[in-house]
């Protein structure tokens, strides 16, 4: 039983490390800041959660702690990536695009007009 937990833990940790590697590759290969963030947020969240939970399984006394740490990562990681994406858009970093699809432009203009009027 304990052995099974051990091996599951090692498999999970390896998966996590693999996804962290993919995230790093994504950050190198993607063309602009937004796409890099796509690779950065998702792969690193699953990578970090996988690694931490794997450690929790290898050492069962830590399981509850690792569970809570993963919960906090799941809550905080998307918020920071949202803040980065919103900030980069609002200081005027252009998107890399094949077609011109940008619904956010209009919303930003409208909110800026509202601020000026107020």
């Amino acid at each position: 039983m304990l052995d099974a937990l051990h091996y599951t833990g090692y498999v999970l940790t390896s998966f996590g490390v693999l996804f962290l590697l993919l995230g790093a590759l994504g950050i190198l290969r993607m063309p602009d800041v937004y796409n890099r963030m796509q690779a950065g947020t998702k792969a690193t969240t699953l990578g970090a959660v996988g690694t931490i939970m794997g450690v929790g399984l290898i050492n069962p006394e830590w399981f509850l702690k690792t569970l809570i740490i993963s919960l906090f990562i799941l809550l905080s990681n998307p918020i920071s990536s949202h803040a980065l994406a919103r900030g980069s858009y609002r200081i005027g970093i252009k998107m890399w695009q094949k077609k011109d699809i940008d619904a956010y432009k209009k919303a930003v203009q409208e909110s800026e007009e509202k601020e000026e009027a107020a």
Partner: protein
Amino acid sequence: MSGTIVAKWRRILQETGKTMSRYIYSFLVFFIFWVAFTTSLQTDELIVGAVVAFIMAFYTGKQFSEGGLSNLSFRKIVFTVRYLFVFVWEMIKANMDVAKRVLSPKMPIDPGIVEVPTKLKSNIAKLALANSITLTPGTLTVDVIEDKLYIHWINVTTTNPQETFGEISAVFEKYIKEIFE
């Protein structure tokens, strides 16, 4: 005359009950976190945990939740657990998707920002939805303005708000509605 006084007292009692339940709820959550982090059931550990949780609850109880103890209803817990399973599955799919795009030599991406409408009202529900969307296939929430989410999509297939809703957020929205509203 006496009727209005009774109604007034009833309202005051209800308000106090609500506030109390918010404090008790935050105390319980802090205490459970304490027990999970210390992973021991010794009496002295539990007493210190209770004191710390009480102090924390005293200062943050009002801001900590809106629903108080009603957040712990059986139905909400069942939906939360089901939602976690759906969410983890979607997240694994998201990572496979990103992995495929990162590793393929041509990099099949066609990015853009689309608009997704939502019917959720409360702030916490919108936060949960935005976070869930950020962690799923090729979508990243850039901003939430009133009842619209603006989402950077790595491979845009449609810009029609109804269809984007179906593709991106429909899976989560029904669970989040049950959990937070």
